[in-house]
């Protein structure tokens, strides 16, 4: 926790002003993609594959084209040839042929729900009717939806041009395993020899969906002058622009992306799905084309997070020191290469000081939608495995699980298995806060009840951010941010700007700009926005301040360097002007003041959290009730504490969903059986208690205010913490997610027998 003296340093940071977009959001005035109305707008729908894996032999659109009210039909034939094209979309290179084939299937459909064709019609009902007239001739192929099955030699092969890359070498035979990652530190054999106790377990997790409330929605207008405008729900206007332009093979300057308000993304609204298709339809019919997914489309056609199989082995000495860790992780990537095994492999041991470690990770193709990022992508699965084994080790060593974690916690100087050495980090502080928390100190009484603890880790990436500002003559500032706002960042960025400039948060009017109004900015993701775009806002404020001193110097006929800034006011000798007073004099001191900054902070920073949970398990039905939940996290510096708490609570609730009920249920034919919120069971308000939060502040040395990203870490610990609590309550170690009632009951019944 921050000492009072430090808190006093700040006037805006650490306060809880009303968010700038609050009134619009609560009155329903905020404009989301689905609210968009344009003159002459028409409606697009997508025809999706009923098969999990099939060759597309032919597509006959003639009947649909003739249907009254249909204005355009597009298929793979309308996509540019993207073969062998690689593009850099800001977060590493992407194989455009794969991205394109995900948007509209080429020679094969690779999952049930894969887009095959699209059409635009005068209204959504006509469009839906006309879809039935598109005739697709499929040759159905065997399919595979479980990661371990997909790795077998005789598994149905998804792509014949994907070869395993392993330690710089490429295999000669095509396979469903695009990548094998290997990290090693120390000497693993020696490490395990030094161990007195070793625990090794295997874990499975199901695919889960990000579950944003707002389905994907995009509208595109391909104008007669060749310019394409896209209104869309996205986490990154610039990445949506880059992907759309690359897929259509037109220059980025020919595409404007207008980000609408966004009803949740959690990593799932980075890849494009509808944008290029709507653009192609618009090019054909000359009208703006709006496309809205149904919930079923969202589940079946957009990114879940991987299903996984993991084996984790950890060894410790009698006195409770971890000596070695080994992990074998296979994550499915869905239909196209490039899942989240990388971060999974980096994160699996990220909370511990491990002298000897080895991690093997496999990216695996199977007949599911292409997996996408989901809040700390890859880390939650890995933490479920590692933190469960940690718990079991502590038990075997008869050491309190919290003390065991404290004893082995990663700290400044710890080298992670993939190489980086941590600077100052706050895991120990979160564990200490947990130890001192009212929750940990409380007694848990009653039958069938248990308490669990787990820690979690996630990076904050840097990447690029731009912010621009215009000073208004009434002393307010309009701030244009390049980051789309999914979690209240409009305000947390504006607050950093206000703090630096010495004005109030209310005196800043933040807006999210479109791709023609603000400098390039990477996605809102990777827990980077409050950190990196906040840094840009701080620099804009410094830029404005410098210009304001120059203006004051003109008024006072002195040097700019002689103008002092005190408490946000500009002073020279006995002269003093507040920011607002000086802003009123810009007109005759040289005109408007405009500030701008772009940043590209190097490297990643680190965020740790520790979660505590009490559960009760019904001994007859195996239903788990969460009695109490506390999330503790190092926020570096909580700019707007309510939003930090909101992130911690939201992440914890999503993690509770992973733990207890959420999963893609597949039929033998590879079809998702539960593509609705009725049977894809996210927690409701009645399923979670109020999540208690404790913010720990160990300032990030790489940020002027010490900010660490907080958005993702909170989803990492919950499944493991709950599994550990279930063990405490029932004596059964669950190694498979979700720990749904039928699964837990089965484990409890066999547990009883043995």
């Amino acid at each position, binding site marked *: 926790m921050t000492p009072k003296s430090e808190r006093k340093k700040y006037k805006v940071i650490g306060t809880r002003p009303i968010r700038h977009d609050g009134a619009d959001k609560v009155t329903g005035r905020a404009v989301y993609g689905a609210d968009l109305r344009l003159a002459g707008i028409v409606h697009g729908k997508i025809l999706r594959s009923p098969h999990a894996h099939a060759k597309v032999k032919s597509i006959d659109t003639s009947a649909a084209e003739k249907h009254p009210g249909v204005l355009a039909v597009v298929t793979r034939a309308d996509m540019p040839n993207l073969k062998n094209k690689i593009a850099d979309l800001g977060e590493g290179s992407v194989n455009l042929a794969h991205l394109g084939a995900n948007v509209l299937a080429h020679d094969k459909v690779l999952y049930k729900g894969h887009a095959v064709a699209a059409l635009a019609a005068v209204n959504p*009902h006509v469009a839906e009717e006309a879809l039935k007239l598109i005739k697709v001739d499929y040759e159905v192929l065997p399919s595979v939806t479980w990661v371990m099955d997909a790795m077998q030699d005789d598994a149905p092969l998804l792509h014949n041009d994907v070869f395993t890359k392993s330690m710089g070498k490429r295999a000669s035979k095509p396979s469903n395993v695009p990548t094998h990652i290997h990290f090693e530190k120390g000497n693993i054999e020696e490490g395990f020899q030094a161990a007195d106790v070793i625990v090794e377990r295997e874990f499975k997790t199901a695919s889960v969906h990000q579950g944003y409330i707002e389905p994907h929605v995009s509208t595109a207008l391909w104008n007669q002058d060749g310019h394409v405008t896209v209104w869309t729900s996205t986490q990154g206007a610039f990445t949506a622009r880059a992907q759309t332009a690359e897929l259509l093979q037109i220059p980025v300057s020919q595409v404007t992306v207008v980000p609408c308000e966004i009803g949740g993304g959690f990593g799932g609204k980075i890849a494009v799905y509808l944008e290029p298709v709507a653009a192609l339809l618009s090019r054909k019919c000359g009208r703006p084309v709006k496309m809205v997914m149904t919930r*079923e489309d969202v589940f079946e056609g957009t990114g879940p997070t991987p299903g996984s199989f993991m084996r984790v082995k950890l060894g410790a000495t009698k006195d409770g020191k971890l000596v070695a860790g080994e992990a074998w992780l296979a994550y499915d990537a869905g239909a196209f290469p490039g899942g989240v095994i990388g971060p999974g492999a980096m994160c699996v041991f990220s909370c511990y000081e491990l002298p000897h470690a080895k991690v093997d990770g496999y990216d695996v193709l199977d007949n599911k939608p292409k997996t996408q990022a989901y809040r700390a992508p890859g880390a939650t699965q890995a933490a479920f495995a590692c933190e469960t084994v940690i718990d079991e080790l502590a038990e075997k060593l008869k050491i309190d699980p919290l003390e065991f974690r404290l004893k082995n916690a990663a700290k400044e100087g710890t080298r992670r298995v993939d190489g980086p050495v941590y600077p100052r980090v706050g895991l120990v502080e979160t564990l200490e806060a947990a130890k001192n928390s009212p929750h940990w100190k409380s007694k848990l009484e009653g039958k069938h009840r248990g308490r669990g603890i787990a820690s979690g880790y996630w990076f904050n990436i840097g990447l690029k951010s731009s912010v621009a500002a215009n000073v208004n003559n009434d002393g307010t500032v309009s701030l244009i941010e390049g980051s789309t706002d999914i979690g209240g960042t409009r305000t947390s960025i504006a607050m950093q700007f206000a703090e630096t400039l010495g004005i109030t948060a209310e005196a800043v009017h933040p807006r999210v700009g479109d791709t023609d109004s603000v400098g390039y900015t990477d996605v809102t993701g990777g827990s980077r926005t409050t950190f990196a775009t906040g840094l840009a806002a701080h620099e804009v404020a410094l830029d404005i301040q410098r210009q304001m001193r120059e203006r004051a110097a003109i008024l006072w006929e002195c040097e700019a360097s002689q103008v002092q800034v005190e408490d946000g006011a500009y002073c020279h000798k006995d002269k003093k002007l507040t920011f607002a007073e000086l802003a009123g004099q810009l007109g005759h001191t040289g005109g408007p003041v405009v500030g701008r900054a772009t940043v590209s902070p190097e490297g990643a920073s680190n965020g740790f959290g520790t979660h505590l949970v009490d559960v009760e398990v019904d001994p007859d*039905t195996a239903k788990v009730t969460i009695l109490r939940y506390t999330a503790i996290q190092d926020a570096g510096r909580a700019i707007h504490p309510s939003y930090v708490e909101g992130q911690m609570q939201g992440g914890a609730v999503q993690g509770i969903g992973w733990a207890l009920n959420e999963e893609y249920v597949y039929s033998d034919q590879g079809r998702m*059986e539960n593509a609705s919120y*009725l*049977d894809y069971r996210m927690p409701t308000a*009645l399923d979670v208690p109020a999540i208690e939060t404790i913010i720990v502040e160990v300032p990030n040395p790489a940020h002027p205010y010490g900010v660490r990203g907080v958005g993702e870490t909170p989803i990492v610990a919950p499944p493991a913490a709950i599994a550990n609590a279930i063990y405490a309550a029932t004596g059964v170690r669950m190694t498979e997610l979700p720990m749904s009632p039928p699964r837990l009951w*089965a484990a409890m019944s066999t547990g009883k027998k043995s």
Partner: protein
Amino acid sequence: MNDFEFQTATTVDEAVSLLAAKGDRARVLTGGTDLIVQLRENLREADLVVDVKKIPELIQYSLTEKGLRLGAGVPCYRIYGDEAIRKAYPGLVDSARIIGGWQIQSRASIGGNLCNSSPAADSIPTLIAYNVICHIAGPEGRRTVPVAEFCTAPGRNVLKRGELLTELEFPAAARHSGGAYLRFIPRNEMDIAVVGAGAWVQLDAKGETIERARLALAAVAPTPLFLADASAALAGKPATEATFKEAAAAASAIARPINDKRGTLEYRKHLAGVLIERSLVGAVRRARGEKWDPHV
């Protein structure tokens, strides 16, 4: 969703003739909480939708010494909003309170729940436990069917072309009797029963011996199940834990569920027993005049 015609009937006869004309291309709309969803998701198609909420007979109910006559279209909120019904038929209230949330309950009817004929419907075990008689109007006149015989397969029932469910007739609440309904869902709301169990008992004046009982299960067979043998076996038994456990074992044995996204076969068979036992406990306690809250 395809285009369809929409008509509002104001009498039973009018509804019957509209329905009879269009046969299986016509659908009755009561609360619409099943029908509209099914039409929108292309699970059902209709050329004609007939709203029956303007037919007085369907939206009335009367509670007399002869029992409860419940119009097929009466929405759930009116049922649990009536104190006399809460007292006389607490099992019905258990069902009415858990169908969807309050938004759904302000539209959804028990008649609609029955006519939708889902194996997992939350009111049907209750209706079976209370031994309800279904009143049906059709082109050939009126007829009645015991509710245990109403459903024939998932989504199917005994209603023929042009027929309409008009009323549900509950026998008078006997002295020392009580009913209860419980379902298991993995969450705490907005879910479909993995298993549902309804129980009704009549005890002797001392509250010690079960004189008559009726048990029913949902989501363990293609239709909601009346446990005729297990119910009959309870007659004359002491209302004790051992008796409840016997009934539970019988329920587990008779349940023939499937593996699906909502639960495994083994788990459902086990749950059938757990829930029958718990709902039986509830019914007995209520028969004794004690308070009991359904909670799984």
